[in-house]
């Protein structure tokens, strides 16, 4: 089955809530959050997408709805790929989990929650996966500075802003030695 056919079938199954986007032979289906679980179950059971490759999230800061969650599906039998996207708003971002459909989604969703702060309803174990419990930020959000922010959880971990000195990998032009061109060594 081609990605286009799979996307068309999925869209007709879900109905008016789905939009198809085609780009360079890749098919993306935009689903509403309420159609997500139905659509995903249909993808796995009827369309043969037995492998969830990845879940990632996008912060379209300034747009509404702000967050996008992207699912990459693959059919092992014929190698077809299909991309599913869904969106959620900035205030209380929450979408349904798919971890009961593909168990691998468990940790992917924990990572999305950790880094972007999107919650997955009915997730069996929605804890942070990279940062520690008590870390107060979601570091991949656009408003979070690259250098980080100060925080402390007693006996667990602390953070402090990194000295970026104008940006990452800023080096003064010229032929001088590194200790004069590298900004942090000048600071």
């Amino acid at each position, binding site marked *: 089955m081609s990605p286009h056919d799979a996307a068309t079938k999925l869209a007709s199954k879900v109905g008016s809530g789905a939009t198809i986007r085609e780009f360079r032979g890749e098919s993306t289906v935009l689903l509403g959050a309420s159609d997500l679980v139905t659509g995903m179950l249909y993808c796995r059971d009827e369309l043969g997408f037995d492998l969830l490759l990845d879940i990632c999230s996008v912060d379209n800061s300034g747009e509404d709805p702000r967050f996008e969650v992207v699912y990459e599906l693959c059919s092992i039998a014929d190698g077809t790929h299909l991309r599913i996207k869904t969106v959620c708003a900035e205030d209380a971002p929450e979408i349904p989990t798919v971890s009961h459909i593909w168990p691998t989604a468990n940790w992917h969703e924990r990572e999305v929650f950790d880094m972007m702060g999107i919650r997955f309803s009915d997730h069996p174990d929605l804890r942070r996966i*990279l*940062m*520690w419990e008590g870390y107060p*930020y979601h*570091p991949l959000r656009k408003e*979070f*500075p*690259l*250098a*980080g*922010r100060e925080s402390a959880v007693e*006996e*667990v*971990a*602390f*953070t*402090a802003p*990194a*000295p*970026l000195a104008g940006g*990452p*990998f800023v080096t003064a032009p010229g032929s001088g030695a590194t200790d004069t061109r590298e900004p*942090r060594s000048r600071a």
Partner: protein
Amino acid sequence: MMTTNTQPELAYDSKIEGNVIFTQLDAAMNWMRKNSLWPMPMGLACCAIELMAAASSRFDISRFGAEVMRFSPRQSDVMIVAGTVTYKMAYAVKRIYDQMAEPKWVIAMGACASSGGMYRSYAVLQGIDQLLPVDVYISGCPPRPEALLEGFMKLQRKIDGDPELQQRHQPAGHAAVSR
């Protein structure tokens, strides 16, 4: 006139010749310490691969008495922090260092352990010296095993009381006493 034939010879005894050396106690202790530094391999990233290479036959860290990698802090003398120390790992490294018995030393191996390296990031500690007293910093990303051995020899000279190294660590106006 009394005969001295039965008196023991105090200044010279051929039986112990070459078996007794006179030295200062701390010099002897330093000599023993610097030649049996058991490392605690705190391998956290790719520097640990070079650390392993330094232990293998081509570079052979056992030439410096440091081949006994101890994975227990209670049996080690020098912690080699080899790799990127994330904030999540930072207190764990500190805790392991705290469990090491005195006297103990720390080598910050590579750019990440020394300064955070290329990770100017929310997640990476910008140098393990924020938590531990580092004795030797080794540059490189990662440093070659030779660089680690050079750092190791620097640490040995420091333990042995190399006046040049001591002076470098003294505050201005307090020149180290040379032995």
